[in-house]
């Protein structure tokens, strides 16, 4: 049942992607207005090798996992 609902979500998103090609949507933040967003301090994952490691530590030390756009492999040591 859960697999089916996940499939529906993915299908809906694919349809959304298809619809986006039907007509242009005017971007409300122009490319020349994105200088601050391009600043390195705005990079959502500036150092992925480090983020992956700390995410992995959290997955080992807590019962929750995923959903943070990042996850690391590694040990969940006793």
């Amino acid at each position, binding site marked *: 049942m859960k697999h089916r609902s996940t499939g529906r979500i993915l299908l809906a998103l694919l349809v959304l992607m298809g619809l986006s090609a039907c007509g242009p949507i005017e971007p409300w933040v122009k490319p020349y207005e994105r200088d601050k967003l391009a600043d390195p301090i705005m990079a*959502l994952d500036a150092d992925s090798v480090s983020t992956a490691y700390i995410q992995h530590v959290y997955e080992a030390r807590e019962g929750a996992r*995923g959903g943070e756009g990042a996850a690391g492999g590694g040990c969940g040591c006793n």
Partner: protein
Amino acid sequence: MILRRLSFTVLLLALSSNGFAGVLPEDRADVLYHLYDGGGVEIDGPSILVRKKVGKSLSFVGNYYVDMVSSASIDVITTASPYTEERKQWSLGMDYLRGNTTMRVNYVSSEESDYDAETVSFSVSQDMFGDLTTLTLGYALGDDLVRRSDDPSFERDLDKQIYSVGLTQILTKNLISTLNFETITDEGYLNNPYRSVRYFDLSSAVGYSFEPELYPNTRTSNALGIRARYFLPYRAAIEGEYRFFTDTWDIVGHTVSLTYIHPWGDWTFTGKLRYHDQTGAHFYSDLFSRSEATNFRGRDKELSALQSYTFKLQAAYEFLSDDGNDWGFLKKGKVTASLNMLHVDYDEFSDMTALQPIGSEPLYQLDADIFQIFFSFFY
């Protein structure tokens, strides 16, 4: 299984880009040393990552990672013997950019003396609406093999699958946000073959005895995370994040964090506070009423109700800038050091090392320092 693996959720991140589909990640190499020290466990080792573009539409990435473990954790000293262990992991990945679409494939292999894991993942990202929106769909398949170091005949399979949907959205000139939904399914041998649960036993001098834990053979979890980063009126950034987690073992979790990033000359300083709260698994108990009291039983403290607190400090220094230098093909170089101080309060995990009578044992608390230092070179 000395090291319980989450290998499946692997280096999806380490091998992914910055969340924008229409641009390949920049060429870089990272050499990292990590150290985890807390709760009687010390884990350290290197991680090396190299990423290189080939032509205008391909980018390759490789990573080599080692954990060297020395453990005398509370689990180990109460029911087993201290041990040392080593785990090696390597991965290879490729990004392919075509128009506003980026496709990624990745393979990860992890090996240790009693646990092997292989994972293949695939994702596709699409930029939309004038590149304000990036939608990413991902799938990964993991194949693990669990063994016991004291029983060569023991082998169990564990299969995992991850379905993920991510949305990165530019909201204003100063604000960017992400939304991630991830479903993970496990099927196979999920418990730790070495770990035990304890139960009341009046025939024992201490009032309890131990028996092997027994987990369900399946687990499905759903996690929804939202994150937003804002460029402040002066040159600094602030980020907030929230994650909701639930699974078929009845664990419900809430995680929040707040991050502040402040550049100062060639330095960038980062501070972060993180809080996590979760309920326990339905088959978890600190002390079962009798032997084989329930169909499933576990005493893994990470499956207990708990709260964790993290305080992070990080400093990065750019020793080589890209505005003209004599370092040949190198454009930029930086060194980063970070310290995460982790504290965990367990609501249902007694500290048996206190040697107190049953019922008056204090609850266990964990304090750990997680240190990283890494050099990054951009070329």
